[in-house]
């Protein structure tokens, strides 16, 4: 290891080096206040030439208005000299050669040389620090002004998680003074039920140095706990975490409105659900009623029908013709009642979606003849039903439903056509569909009522006292649609009506 010989800085030469190279101004002043020594830094600080200061009173370096005070303090210092900063809690100023006054910091020392007391002043120009301080103060004032005029409540906390600032808006809201809010005092205003959640959220955010958002209830100056939205963002100074800055706003009314709205929606949804349930129940009841009514209708109808059949068997003797006529009417009424009942049931089944297509192969001409036979009893005197069939005889369709459709259309034609009129049924078995039209020369359907033709219980005004429920065509249309077909009609009052159905083949 090499031997190190320290530089002899304690020698006069060494101290001279320190004196000359120091970056702080050094002045040595005697008891009379005369500058004995000054270093280059001090000369530069006060704007003097080298050695220019020596022999001059130190007061030339003091602003004129402060010189009397300085003389007094200088004399007092020499009475009890000690190393200390000068002018504690005072603002000190120096005066340059050109008259410029600038802020300084001065530390004093003392020594005795050849029986003479000397004071050493270490002088620093603190203009930059003062300016920086002023700038910071201006910025802080600007921030406080902004914050105090903000409609939002603003808060600041330090790295120790304690509140260091709340703005005027906050204080106006809580009705408290700043001293009550600083530190953790402001948390007294948090609703007891929300405090734990807030503290945890804030603590976690502090640990993670992350922004956070929370809603909790804060006590307003009128004592009411109100919901507020509280946001915090971490702050850093030279990359070191320095706390949080945040804002909050009163969202109580919006939150209450939202909760009310949610309650209302829930209530309405419940109401709607209950209404739907009631509707469902009503529909079920209705179906059950229809089912029950069906049974109740059918039983007495069976009795009546069987009785009349028996009367027919026994009828003999006087008034046979009248008995027969009445018997026919009774049976006809029974059949009508049965048809009404069947129509109601069919419609109910259609509306419940309980009807299916049942296809089978059948001979069209034979089928049409059966249908015509079914309506024979309705025919008026001289009415003729002509059948025309084109195309192949065999077809696959839902024969039962087609029978209902055609019996209904033909029945209507017969009912609403005069005696001695013709009714034409034309059936065409095409490649992909069957088209059947029923044409009469009856009373026709008034034009302004045609749009209601397929509506439930609709009877045109010109039907008079011709029997009908207004359900037949409704069911016809539903059956046609169920079979994926379509139905059209053309009608003119006093001329007649033609219905045309087209059904795709199975």
């Amino acid at each position, binding site marked *: 290891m090499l031997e190190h010989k320290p530089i002899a800085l304690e020698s006069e030469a060494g101290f001279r080096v320190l004196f000359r190279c120091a970056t702080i101004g050094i002045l040595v002043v005697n008891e009379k206040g005369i500058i004995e020594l000054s270093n280059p830094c001090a000369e530069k600080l006060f704007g003097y030439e080298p050695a220019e200061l020596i022999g001059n009173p130190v007061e030339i370096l003091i602003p004129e208005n402060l010189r009397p005070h300085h003389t007094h303090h200088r004399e007092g210092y020499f009475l009890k000299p000690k190393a200390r900063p000068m002018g504690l809690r005072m603002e000190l100023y120096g005066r340059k050669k050109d008259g410029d006054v600038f802020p300084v910091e001065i530390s004093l020392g003392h020594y005795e040389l050849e029986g003479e007391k000397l004071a050493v002043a270490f002088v620093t120009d603190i203009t930059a620090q003062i300016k920086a301080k002023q700038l910071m103060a201006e910025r802080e004032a600007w921030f406080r002004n902004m914050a105090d005029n903000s409609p939002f409540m603003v808060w600041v906390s330090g790295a120790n998680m304690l509140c260091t600032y709340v703005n005027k808006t906050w204080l106006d809201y809580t009705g408290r003074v700043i001293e009550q809010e600083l530190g953790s005092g402001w948390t007294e205003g948090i609703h007891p039920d929300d405090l734990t959640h807030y503290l945890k959220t804030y603590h976690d955010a502090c640990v993670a140095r992350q922004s956070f958002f929370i809603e909790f209830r804060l006590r307003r100056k009128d004592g009411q706990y109100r919901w507020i939205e509280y946001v915090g963002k971490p702050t850093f100074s030279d990359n070191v975490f320095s706390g949080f800055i945040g804002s909050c706003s009163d969202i109580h009314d919006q939150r209450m409105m939202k909760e009310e709205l949610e309650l209302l929606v829930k209530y309405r949804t419940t109401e709607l659900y209950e209404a739907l349930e009631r509707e469902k129940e009503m529909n079920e009841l209705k179906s059950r009623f*229809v*089912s029950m009514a*069906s*049974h109740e209708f*059918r*039983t007495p*109808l*069976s*009795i*009546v*029908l*069987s*009785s009349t*059949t*028996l009367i027919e*068997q026994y009828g003999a003797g006087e008034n046979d013709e009248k008995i027969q006529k009445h018997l026919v009417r009774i049976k006809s009424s*029974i059949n009508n009642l*049965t048809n009404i*009942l*069947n129509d109601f*049931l069919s419609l109910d*089944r259609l509306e419940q979606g*309980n009807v299916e297509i049942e296809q089978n192969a059948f001979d069209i001409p034979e089928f049409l003849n059966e249908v015509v036979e079914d309506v024979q009893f309705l025919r008026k005197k001289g009415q003729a039903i002509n059948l025309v069939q084109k195309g192949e005889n065999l077809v696959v369709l839902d024969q039962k439903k087609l029978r209902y459709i055609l019996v209904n259309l033909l029945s209507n034609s017969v009912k609403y056509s005069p005696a001695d009129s013709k009714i034409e049924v034309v059936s065409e078995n095409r490649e992909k569909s069957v088209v059947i039209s029923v044409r009469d020369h009856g009373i026709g359907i008034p034009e302004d009522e045609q749009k209601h033709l397929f509506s439930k219980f609709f009877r045109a005004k010109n039907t008079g006292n011709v029997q009908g429920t207004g359900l037949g065509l409704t069911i016809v249309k539903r059956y046609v649609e169920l079979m994926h077909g379509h139905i059209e009609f053309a009608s003119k009052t006093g001329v007649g009506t033609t219905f045309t159905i087209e059904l795709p083949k199975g």
Partner: protein
Amino acid sequence: MKTVLIIEDNEEIRENTCEFLELSGFNVISSQNGKEGVAAAAHTRPDVIVCDILMPGINGYDVIRQLKNNPLTSGIPFIYLTASGEKNDISTAMKMGANGYIRKPFEMRNLIAEIRKVC
């Protein structure tokens, strides 16, 4: 002469139906409920059974089930009489082995036609 067993709880319908069938040349036996009907079927072995579906006590479905489970009666043709408008009821009845059904109110001639179809 063919024998028909009528199982029907409604007195008027039962009597009218029996009367008409007798006039039409059938030998007729009747029961006013399902239980009696099942016993009568086993005892008399009719050529055809005509049975209502909706009856108090055991209904028409139970009757046909019991008849089908008894070798003595399982082969007897069975025709339903029904006042129900429900397609499901008829479908159920046919799946249980009925040979036909008549919906009330019915023309007697239709009943005769159904009976003649099966015996």
